[in-house]
């Protein structure tokens, strides 16, 4: 079932939705970019349709809701521990104690990303209860993509058509908006604000400019190949690629003792990045993967090969945010293609011999 809305209808719809739910959506933050007077599109809680950015790709992903950049897990005193409350960004006072469910508006690639986060946090050994607690309250809404953006390669990653985990969709059409509504319970809400009913199929991208082909096997010779050396020279190890990635899940812990009273404190977890110094540092100060080329190998192969060995599908969803953000203009897509070419070359050389797949 679908609906057609005008601007006023969407305003009313979002306002009413935001009464019953928290609404988490891409928002254009004016001037919040790295460079002077450049905007940034970042997810945030909204209560008004005008705050939602439907036309641009978000620079950072929805994952900041499910796996906050910085999240206090619990507070401790001498012999007591109290878990931190609420949903939303750590330290965000307004939303902190809110226990409503959340609607998250996201594109098809990101909706596919949710499966990766779920598998990492819920189906990869013991469940992560902090993740579970937020995840249970999250509902998804699909932002239709009439066309892709620069650097997108969702088609080749098979994430251009949304999975079935959304309850309604939203996209511009003509002067107004169209929504497909899957959830029965949401229909009265849409009927109150729509101009009319119509059959709506959310738009999806069927062709990207960027093409990526992932490697089918991974001989040790390619893992240790000198093709990674280029990235030791080019990469500055800033980690922006992983922090904007909707599927990167790594975190680290911070135990903070309040300076005025060392017997009171909190435990936080913050996102971590395999590209940033310190990620592979172990007790005693030794560090694995010191060179950025090694870090690049670890990241890239995880996204398009190693993750697949565990879960049966590729981690990367082809949103291309890593290529959008890299200050050194390193293209993840180009790297994957180089790796695949190297694997093909290896295969051609070793035709008939046994592939060593570790």
């Amino acid at each position, binding site marked *: 079932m679908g609906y057609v809305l005008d601007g006023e209808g969407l305003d009313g719809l979002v306002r009413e939705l935001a009464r019953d739910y928290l609404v988490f959506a891409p928002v254009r*933050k004016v001037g919040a970019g790295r460079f*002077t007077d450049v905007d940034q599109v970042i997810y945030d809680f909204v209560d008004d349709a005008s705050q939602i950015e439907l036309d641009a790709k978000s620079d950072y992903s929805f994952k900041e809701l499910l796996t906050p950049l910085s999240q206090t897990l619990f507070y401790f005193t001498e012999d007591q521990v109290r878990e931190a409350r609420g949903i939303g960004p750590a330290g965000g006072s307004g939303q902190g104690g809110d226990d409503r469910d959340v609607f998250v508006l996201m594109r098809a690639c990101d909706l596919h990303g949710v499966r990766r986060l779920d598998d990492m946090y819920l189906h990869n050994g013991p469940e992560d209860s902090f993740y579970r607690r937020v995840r249970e309250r999250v509902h998804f809404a699909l932002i239709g993509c009439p066309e892709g953006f620069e650097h997108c390669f969702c088609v080749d990653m098979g994430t251009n058509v949304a999975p079935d985990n959304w309850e309604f969709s939203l996209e511009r059409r003509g002067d107004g908006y169209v929504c497909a509504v899957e959830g029965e319970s949401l229909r009265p809400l849409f009927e109150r604000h729509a101009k009319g009913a119509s059959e709506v199929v959310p738009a999806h991208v069927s062709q990207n400019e960027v093409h990526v082909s992932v490697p089918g096997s991974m001989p040790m010779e390619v893992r240790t190949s000198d093709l990674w050396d280029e990235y030791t020279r080019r990469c500055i190890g800033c980690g922006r690629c992983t922090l904007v990635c909707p599927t990167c899940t790594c975190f680290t812990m*911070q135990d*903070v*003792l309040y300076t005025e009273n060392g017997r009171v404190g909190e435990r*936080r977890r913050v996102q971590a990045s395999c590209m940033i110094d310190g990620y592979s540092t172990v007790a005693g100060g030794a560090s694995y993967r010191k060179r950025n080329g090694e870090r690049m190998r670890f990241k890239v192969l995880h996204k398009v090969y190693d993750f697949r060995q565990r879960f049966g599908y590729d981690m990367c969803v082809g949103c291309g945010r890593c290529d959008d953000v890299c200050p050194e203009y390193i293209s993840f897509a180009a790297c994957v293609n180089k790796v695949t070419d190297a694997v093909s070359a290896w295969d051609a050389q070793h035709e008939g011999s046994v592939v060593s797949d570790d």
Partner: protein
Amino acid sequence: MIQDVDVKAMKKNAFRVSKERGMTASRVRVPGGLVSARSMARIVEIAEEYGRGEIFLTNRQGVEIPGIHMEDMPKVNELLRSIIKDTGINQGDSEHGYLASGTRNVVACPGKRLCPFGCYDTTAFAQRMDRAIFPNDRHVKVAFTGCSNDCAHVALNDFGVIGMTEPQYDPARCIGCGQCVEWCRRRSVSALSLVNGKVVRNEDRCIGCGVCVVYCPTRAWTRSSEHYFRVKIMGRTGKQNPRLAQDWLRWVDEDSIVKIVKNTYAFIDEYIDPNAPEGKEHIGYIVDRVGFDEFCKWALEGVELGEKCQRATRVYWDSRRYDRDNDLR
């Protein structure tokens, strides 16, 4: 041929007396250092038609066309007309070339229009300043630079304006990766430190360069919506007592800077040495003579500095007086 040229009028008209008798050069004003390709083509035309096909790029971002016969000055002025209009020079009369040459071309680095570190639109501010102070015979040098790197060498000007942003920190977006701390140390002034996994900014030491914002991988650091400035004053080159400009104001706003520079013209009119050669005297020498407080009185007339603005009540210039001592030991 009788050659009777009013050299003083010619110089005011932005033509110079050159080494070669009867030959001059035309100085084209380029406020903010941004010139359209169309005007650049006109400049080329002048150089080819009336010059010797050469163009000097001046130290203050203008261009100077050498090899012009003095008798061709009216024709060159005619061709300068479209350039004067196109570069937005503040003079109603564009028929007779430039109406003054005392106040020097207002210099700017490319700023935020080009540079990742530029904290404001240096070109636009330079053009605004140029419209406020030109045409004027007083020898005043103003320059704009996008950040504390001072690529525009504003420290060599009477007024040097440096862009600042006040870094805004959102601890909820900070993962404690420490890159801002490290880059502030390596590229700037070590104003940041990590305390309990979050970043503390030494507000007094921070020069508002925005390096932390550029390197933050999560947008925990962003720029303030207001653009702020640091103003250095009374820098100069020269034979007697060259010196770098020193900080006078910081976290000051754009409007105040325009007022202050305009006010300074009245100060110069009041106190300039009547015997100064060619009526030119660096403002700094006047300030040395009449006192810094007197300068402040005139410059700050009608200026209401914002709450955030900090002002040095004393400014000291460390420099050498070559008119007293030229000893290297």
